[in-house]
Structure formats: C-alpha cells, structure tokens
C-alpha cells in the first residue's frame, strides 16, 4: 500500500529535504500563532495593569480546581504525544496508535472540562454579550476580564479541536501503514503543534485563574 503514496513529494529532491521543509514550516506556523496569541496577551496585560483589582475579582470567578485538573490533563497529553512521536520514529506503529489515542482521550477530557466551565458561567449569568448580569463596583472591568477569559480560552480550545482532528487523522494514517519511518514526519510536526498548544495553556492558566488565588 505504501507504494501508492510516494515517499517524497514531487517538488522535493529527497526525503531529507522534505523533512526539513515540513519541520521548518511547522515552526514558522507556530511563530505566527505566538504573534496571534501575543496580541491577545498584550491586550490582557494592558488592561490588567489598568484594573488590577477588577481583574483579581474576575479571576476569582474562574474555577481554579477545574483549571488545575485541566493543566495536569494537558501536560499528560503532551507526554503521551511525545511517546507517540518516539514510537512512530522507531517504527512501532501499534504503540504509536495507542499513545495517539491516549492523547486524543486526554484532549477530549480537557475540552469536556472546559465545556463544563463554560456551562457554569452560563448558569451564573456571567457570559458577556449573552447574559452578563454581574453588578457591583467595577462590573464593567470584570466583564472585560471575562471577555478575555472567553476569548483566550476559546481561541485555545479552537486550536485544541483542530489538534484533535489532526491527531485523529494521524491515527487513521498510522493504522493504514502510511506513516512508517522514514515517512513519520507528519506525526513529528503534529507533536510540535500539540506541545505548542500545551505551552499556551501553561501561560493562560496562571494569568487567568491564579491572579488572586491566595485570598
């Protein structure tokens, strides 16, 4: 079956050039993602510096426990992803599939918990633009914080969903034997993407959930 899909795409001189190009492409794509999230982080930083009290109050509305669980879930999924990449590079496709599926499961768990958090916010009537009815001093600024919360975690969740789709595709391709080495580059660059999404969460979690956790 593997002969039907040429190992090297027609524009490349050889496998190594293809691998170099694919990896560089993913790194550059991740740079654009850094700039993308960076814009949001900058806006957040500016408003947090302007309204420290309000943002602390907003942060207390976030469910730290669920966020912490999600952090552990996501870090673990990066671990299973790394194992999958390693297994694929070594040609152990069964192991690779297992690890990819584990990653899928953990990623889905993350999204499930996230959905739970969003649902709670809806029930508490603090979704900006939909049913935000928080009152009290600094209500406007707290609404702004919740906006950033939904914007940043929502964008992150969108990237997670895309990641899950890609990982699913990797599972299917591996099962069909299309990603045996030396054609395992797609899994390697999927891993890069997954780790990036994980790292974004590592920044999001303290910035959004842990602003005033000691009070």
């Amino acid at each position, binding site marked *: 079956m593997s002969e039907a899909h040429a190992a090297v795409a027609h524009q490349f001189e050889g496998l190594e050039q293809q691998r170099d190009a694919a990896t560089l492409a993913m790194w550059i794509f991740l740079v654009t993602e850094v700039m993308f999230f960076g*814009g949001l982080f900058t806006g957040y930083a500016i408003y947090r510096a302007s309204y420290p009290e309000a943002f602390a109050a907003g942060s207390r509305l976030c469910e730290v426990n669920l966020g912490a669980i999600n952090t552990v879930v996501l870090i673990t999924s990066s671990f299973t992803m790394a194992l999958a990449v390693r297994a694929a590079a070594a040609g152990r496709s069964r192991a690779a599939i297992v690890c990819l599926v584990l990653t899928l499961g953990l990623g889905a768990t993350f999204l499930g918990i996230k959905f739970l958090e969003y649902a709670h916010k809806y029930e508490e009537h603090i979704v900006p633009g939909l049913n935000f009815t928080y009152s009290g001093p600094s209500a406007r600024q707290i609404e702004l914080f919740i*906006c950033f919360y939904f914007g940043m975690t929502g964008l992150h969740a969108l990237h997670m969903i895309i990641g899950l789709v890609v990982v699913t595709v990797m599972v299917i391709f591996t099962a069909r034997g299309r990603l045996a080495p030396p054609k395992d580059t797609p899994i390697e660059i999927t891993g890069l993407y997954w780790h990036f999404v994980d790292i974004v969460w590592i920044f999001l979690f303290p910035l959004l959930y842990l602003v005033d956790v000691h009070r």
Partner: protein
Amino acid sequence: MSATAARVLPHEDSGTREHYLNVRYGLKSWLLTTDHKRIALLYLMSITAMFFVGGAFAVVMRLNLLTPEGQLVSAESYNKLFTMHGLIMVFFFLIPSIPAVLGNFLVPLMIGARDVALPKINLLSWYIFITGGTLALVSAITGGVDTGCTFYTPFSTTYSNTHVMPMAIGVFITGFSSILTGLNFIVTMHTMRAPGLTWFRMPLFLWSLYATSVIFVLGTPVLAISLLALGAERMFHVGIFDPNLGGDPLLFQHLFWFYSHPAVYVMILPGMGVVSEIIPCFARKRIFGYGFVAFSSVAIAVISFLVWGHHMFVSGQSVYAGLIFSVLSYLVAIPSAIKVFNWTSTLYKGTVTYETPMLYALGFIGLFTIGGLTGLFLAALAVDVHVHDTYFVIAHFHYIMVGGMVMAYLGGIHYWWPKISGRLYPEWWARLSALVVFLGFNLTFFPQFILGYLGMPRRYHAYPEEFQILNVMSTAGASILGVGYLIPLVYLAWSIRYGPPAPSNPWNATGLEWQTPSPPPTENFETTPVVTEEAYAYETRPLSYV
C-alpha cells in the same frame, strides 16, 4: 526596424512543446492545480479585477472632488467610497500583488526548484483570498462600509451603522492568505535552493520577498486579533475599545498600526526587489553594492516593526513615545536611501537601453525617492502635527504605493511576461502607457502635497473653495492615469493570442528562471540546475539580443 521583430531568436516551437499552460485544459485543471505558476495566474486574474474595482471607486471620488460642494455623490456614499477604495486596494490588490503573482511564479524558478515547498497550501491560500475578497465585495455591494480603511474605534464598533462585520471578516480571512504565502516562501527559500545557490548568490528579488515574508508571518496575526476584538466589541458590546464601556480607543490604534505599518513595507519591498532585477539587466551590469541592498531589505523589515506610533503623534499618546517613534522612523528611511543610491550607481558606466521594464524601473526610482523623502516631513514631530490627516499624507503614500509599487509591479509584469505567457508584448504600446502612467500619476498626486500643507484634511467629500484649482488638477491627472492603466490590459490580453512567441531568454538576463523555456514546463527544469556564478554576472552574458 520594429523592435519586436528584432527580438525573435530561434527557439523551440512553443506551439507543439508541452508546457504548464497547455499540459491540461479545463476549469478543473486550473481550479485544482497545485502548480505554482498556474496559482500565480489565478492570483493575477483576481487582483486585476480587484484593482479595477478599487480604481473605479477612486474615479468616482475624484469626480466628486471637482467641485467644492462635492454633490456628485452624497456624503455617506463618498465616505463609503474612500473606505472601500482603501481596503480593496491595500488588502486585495497591493499586498498580494507582487508576492502572490510574481513571487509565486518566480520563487521556485529562481532557486532552481520544481515548485514551492507546500504546493497544496499555496492553492489553499488563493482560495482563502477569494473567500475574503468575496466577503469584502458582498459588503461593498450590500451597502458598503464607511469607517475609513483604518476602522478607528469607537466609530467602527459603536457608531457606524454600515456593513462593518462582513468587511472586517473578509479582511481577517484574507490575512491568512498572506500568512500562508509568507510561510511558503520562507520554507522554500531555506530548504530548496539548487546546489551552489548560496544566500549571497540569490537574486535580490528573493531577498526582498524573504523580508516581505517575515513581515507577513509576524505582523498579520496581530491584525487578525485586532479585527477579532473589533468584531467582538461590535457584536457583543463589550468594552475593549469603547471608552463609554471602559475600553481604550488608543489600544485599537496601537494594535491596528502594529500590523499596518509593517504592512506598508510589504507594499514596497517586493517592488524594490523587482527594480533590483531590472536595472542590472538593462544596464548589462552587476548591481552596485549587492550586500548592502540585500541587508537593507532585512533592515527595513526589522525596523518596520518599531515605528508604528508615528501614525499616532497627535492621538493623545505620550509625547515621549512620540519621540522614540520619530527617531526610529528616521532610521527606517536610511536603508531605502541606500537602495536608491545603489540603483543609481548601477547605471554608471553601464550600457543602457530603454525597454518598457527599464522605463518603469527608472520611473520607480524617481517617484519612490519623492515619496520616501516626503516621509521625512511626516517623521518630524512638529511638522506632522500640521500635516497629519491631510492630503499631504495621501500624496506621500500614493507616491510610494502607486508611483513606486504599482510601477514596479507593471515593470515586473512586462519583464517576466515572455516567461509567463510565452509571448512578447508590443514594445511601443507598452512604452507609451508607461509614459502616460508617469505623467498622469504626477499630475494627480503632486498637487495633493500642496493641498495638504494648505490644510485640506483627508476623507473630505467637500472642501473650501480656495482648494478647487488643485483638486481639479488632481482629477485631471487621475483620468490620464486611468487611461494609462487600461492600455496594458488591452495589449497584454492581445499578446496572449497574437504576440510573437518568446524565446527562453529574450533579454539575455541572468537568473535561473531564464534557463528554462518560455513558458516553462510544469516541472520547471528538466534537471536540477547547479549554480556556479554570482548573481547578475552580466559580464558573462551575450551582449544583446539581435
């Protein structure tokens, strides 16, 4: 003796030889192509259409400005016209122009590769462009947008009742087209150069596209976020930028200009690259100061990210920020000056001929110099206080974008037309339209410098009587300019069918793209070329085509 007949050399009969245009016919073979050359032509069709849409808006605007009362169209309509003229020209014509058309066509050819690194992503980027462009046109047709192409808040988020969302979404989507194009170019240039093609043997066109791609990749995502936030505020009335809701309108300006300033360098760097190819060819000389020209492209790209606040000197931003942005803005002018001096020096002791590409390139040097120099006025804080948001600024950026970039684009289209189409264009018609463009352009935009210093603000559908003479001059120029742009449309289309077949290297130019037939086969080269000489090694080339 006609110039066209003199240039036909013995060549392969492109009528029976297979090449990228005739290898397959039919709509599907074009819409599902992954051949970078066909994708370049898809872009060419799209951006040409957008150019004439944006140009039509400009014509109506200039006609309205013939009289001080400005009653040709209503105030609302005029405001929509200038907004959409700007948005369409910038996002749907100028930003893609050279990179997506000439870049897509030439980058693999110039490095000796068969295609770009990610051909399917390349096609995807065109579809993304079409999607964004369609949304923008839908917005225009269903009533238009009147926020100005800068979308300043809170007008755009709270006060404007025009179709801001579809337009903003259209621009947002099209941004991804630029990002993917830039990503593709960077990866291709890093990993797929032919053996022997070191960085410093690369044609300068590639250096300028590399610098442009860096800006695409780093800057465009920030525009995406700005538009996302703008959309969120408009739709959900959350207070990010509206002060009545606790937001900061200046934050929008910072976020918007953080991308939009580097974007203007996207709209000149590729043009500079084209000029760096044309001048050595038609002076038959290596370019003067290759290293300096190459590094100046990179320097422009880097410094361009540090000057965005010069659009905001009177916005209410801190005066100290103004000082920093002013000094950096002067700094960013220096690499451009270096290029101009190097291009001029290349002519010294050359042996110059005046084919159409050369006319456009020489025109570029003159007009870009004026446009760039007028930037020095704007960078001076105290002078900018007076001329900010007046016609002085409009004249400045049109000199660079139109007198510079569009002329370079046309020069490049003509220079590589034989390679792209396999045909020669009619030289005398082409020279005539270059002249018409040059004259029409100056008549249109030079009076606007004076109007600006006199104090005529921009985005005005009506103006005090004393400004009328200069406005009439400008409109007269615009009609001439319009004619100058229509003529090439006609003869280039004509040449596709009736132009004399072109040899592989009608200009006897250096560069790998000329080592393959015109038009090239789908795979570009039969065997991967090996590069052994420096760029622009014109001393080794035959003197002139017969």
